[in-house]
């Protein structure tokens, strides 16, 4: 392949720059959300592992999670998992149930479902996060 230094640059390089389609966006987003979820799991295991060090150390870590930054992070995490799970369903459909024939409709349909679930979830999360009475 000429004109690019590393293969991963391919979709972005001047020569390769390929038009994005639904399928390619879904694939790319699935990979990114996958990495995101892995990072989350590592952080999660790290934080839960503090249970082994006693209640104080665990509570300190949990206190972190009450900060606004992490609350936003939780919302983003929720969206990430939603996307990855729903698109995962789409991929399973493509693999086993002939979903390739209508993969775009499947994608947008599942995303619509995802948006609804996301909004409900965020509303629930915010309600719990903002204390009703101090």
């Amino acid at each position, binding site marked *: 392949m*000429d004109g690019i230094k590393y293969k991963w640059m391919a979709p972005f390089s001047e020569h*390769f720059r390929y038009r994005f*389609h*639904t*399928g*390619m966006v879904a*694939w790319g987003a699935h990979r990114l959300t996958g990495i995101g979820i892995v990072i989350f799991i590592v952080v999660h295991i790290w934080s839960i592992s503090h249970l082994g060090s006693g209640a104080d150390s665990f509570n300190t870590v949990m206190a972190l999670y009450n900060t606004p930054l992490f609350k936003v992070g939780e919302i983003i995490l929720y969206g990430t998992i939603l996307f990855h799970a729903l698109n995962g369903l789409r*991929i399973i459909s493509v*693999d*086993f149930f002939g979903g390739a024939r209508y993969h775009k409709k499947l994608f947008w349909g599942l995303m619509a479902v995802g948006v609804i679930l996301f909004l409900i979830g965020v509303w629930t999360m915010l309600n719990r996060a903002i204390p009703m009475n101090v």
Partner: protein
Amino acid sequence: MEIVLQIRRFNPEKDKKPFWQPFRINADPTWKMLDCLMHIKNEMDGTLTFRKSCAHGICGSDAMKINGKSTLACQRLVRDYKAGKFVIEPLPGFPVIKDLVVDFDCFFDKLRKVLPWFINDDPAPADSERIQSPEQAEKILESVKCILCGSCTSSCPSAWMNADYLGPAALLKAYRFIADSRDRAAGERIRIVNDHDGAWRCHTIFNCVEACPKEINVTDHIARLRLEIFSRKI
């Protein structure tokens, strides 16, 4: 109407690297992109080089990347591009020989790997064709449309990243024979595509489906291929 085509040029006898060259032409909206290229070659720059033959989407010679998408230059008309922008490049992922002409050797080598020919060495019926029901014929109807133009494989990011990936075209061809009720080498082909650089390298990106000028749903066929592998291996 006046349009500007940005064409990716490269003459190995003169240029060190490829470069963009703009051409301003007066084109009719019903002109194919191929007509635009021929107009440039005839009237402005005779060195502009590209393959062409049937000029109506059946031979597959003029596959190239137009506005970021692998397609056939003879199937795209000027009026198809509402934005009025025209960026023409050779197929991505193939070595460039000159201007818009690329080297297809790797493509055909990959095809060869899946035994892309009918195999049935049983004695054929003497005075008749082998019987195949319309339903069985229907199963391969879509995959026999393939004109081996290279649009699919050239558009596949998996193919770009993995030099050994068989690619959509080869997998489609494998399916065409595996699913043909008259062929007898399905087992052998299944073994060949059941490889991490075979059917399993497809990540359902669907670029091939977007690119295919014959509107074959290649990913669907690769999915069917994987199900075939499952059902035979279990």
